[in-house]
């Protein structure tokens, strides 16, 4: 798509793109290039020189049990976050869509956790489940359940999943509600006249018509779980216990800044870069299809 009417001139447009070009070159392309470059080297133990290892860092990573474990952890974590946050959001959106009046009020009440930073959400949930002072921990204790996410890997994972899904419910709810409200009421009423009950209508009409929204949210939530949950993990578990909640982004940070293993950290960045690219392509393909609908 091109504009028919354009202005003349060469220096003015170059001047206009200059600020963005400069910032993007310095803080985006150069670091991304550095990540690719550094991933081909290992620094010597004194940090004085770099030794070329080719794809050695990648070979090492892919055979490293810790890195593989982190991959598996990330997969489990992002699937759980996506399913939990989309499931709860869809349930609430279906309920709100059934109301004639008042769905706007519920929307206002439900959207604002979206504004709460993942790191702050982490602190809130950490407080509720804190092993010493947590209210939920205490009541669970009264029921005879001994909650300790500091030691128990499954509980640690559960806690970071819930804390990460919490703010995400708002976001998904907005999109699901908009999607539901866009489905023509006449279609649903026709089915109702034919005798289809609620669950039948939902399964055969509403859910298929909602599938573009669902697919879109699927991709966006996976991206969120991969990249934007660092704050939750860092505040609640710091990747523990025994790396049970070390997702890939957390490992880039832990190896690069805490472990000072720059070659490996850079190689991990490159792998993440590839994952993001694939997800981006999927998303754009999908959006293109959506336009043609």
């Amino acid at each position: 798509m091109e504009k028919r009417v354009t202005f003349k001139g060469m220096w003015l447009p170059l001047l206009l793109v200059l600020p963005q070009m400069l910032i993007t070159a310095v803080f985006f392309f150069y670091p991304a290039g550095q990540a690719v470059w550094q991933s081909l080297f290992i620094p010597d133990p004194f940090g004085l020189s770099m030794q070329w290892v080719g794809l050695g860092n990648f070979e090492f990573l892919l055979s490293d049990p810790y890195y593989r474990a982190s991959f598996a952890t990330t997969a489990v974590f992002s699937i759980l976050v996506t399913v939990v946050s989309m499931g709860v959001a869809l349930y609430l959106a279906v309920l709100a869509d059934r109301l004639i009046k008042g769905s706007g009020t519920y929307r206002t009440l439900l959207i604002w956790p979206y504004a709460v930073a993942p790191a702050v959400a982490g602190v809130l949930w950490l407080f509720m489940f804190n092993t010493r002072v947590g209210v939920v921990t205490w009541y669970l204790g009264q029921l005879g359940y001994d909650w300790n996410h500091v030691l128990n890997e499954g509980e640690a994972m559960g806690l970071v999943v819930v804390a990460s899904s919490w703010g995400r419910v708002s976001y998904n709810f907005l999109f699901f509600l908009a999607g539901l409200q866009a489905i023509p009421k006449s279609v649903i009423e026709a089915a109702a006249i034919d005798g289809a009950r609620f669950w039948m209508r939902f399964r055969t009409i509403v859910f298929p018509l909602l599938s573009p929204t669902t697919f879109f949210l699927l991709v966006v939530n996976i991206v969120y779980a991969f990249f934007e949950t660092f704050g939750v993990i860092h505040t609640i578990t710091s990747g523990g216990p025994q790396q049970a909640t070390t997702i890939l982004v957390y490992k880039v940070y832990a190896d690069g800044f805490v472990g000072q293993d720059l070659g490996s950290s850079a190689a991990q960045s490159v792998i993440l870069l590839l994952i993001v690219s694939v997800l981006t392509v999927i998303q754009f393909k999908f959006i293109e299809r959506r336009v043609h609908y």
Partner: protein
Amino acid sequence: MARDANAGMVERRGAGLWLTHLGLIIGVAFIFFPIWLAFVASTVTQPEIVRPPMPLWPGDQFYENYSKALTSGINAPVARMLLNSAIMALGISLGKIAISLLSAFAIVYFRFPGRQLFFWLIFLTLMLPVEVRIVPTYEVAANFGMLNSYSGLIFPLIASATATFLFRQFFMTVPDELAEAARVDGARPMRFFVDILLPMSRTNVAALFVILFIYGWNQYLWPLLITTDPSMNTIVMGIKQMFPSGDDTADWPVIMATSILAMIPPVVVVIGMQKLFIRGLVDSEK
């Protein structure tokens, strides 16, 4: 009510309606509970918290806890962290909007050498979060002497082109006749940009502002890396720094007061600009 009678046969009435409300209220309660608990914790004394179970109803220490947090905090006064966060969030949102408006104007309304290349370069930056290129970006910022500075907090986070993309899409929908008329009248390109294009983009700019403000305010990893001086901490990353490193008990009332303070600005922006926010979200993500 007549309205109910006309509303169609699918909506629930009577018991079904109440069940629907009940389901939603349970959902809202679940969403609210963590925040309610944080608020309660920010109004009671430390001994009330460390001897569980803590109360579920606010106490009388509201003023004490919040003034302690704001004026002295634990490592740095929270008022200072709020200021840092505000500067960062405003710098990111306004800076990104400004550079994106200019470059979108250039690629839509001009034919210049390198235009296609530029377009593809910015396309590449879409969706690649700072978390992925974190170590080299940190080195760049360190080499520029940007550690513990506002420019270090802001610039690396505006290096992506999502906003440019959105403005490009919007400019493409602006009728050609407007630019044509401006050209016939002999208006310079920047006149057209300032007098016609900018006023037309008002709603898009506002919607994008909401999204970018929240994005900037809620940053965690980047400020964590480049601000080592407590007086440069942003509030979102500063909360974690308030936890003691050893076995000491955390000062929960002050930490929770800080958490509440950290949520207020973005929540106010979202609720206050709800319509624009939803529109911005749907535009930018779809």
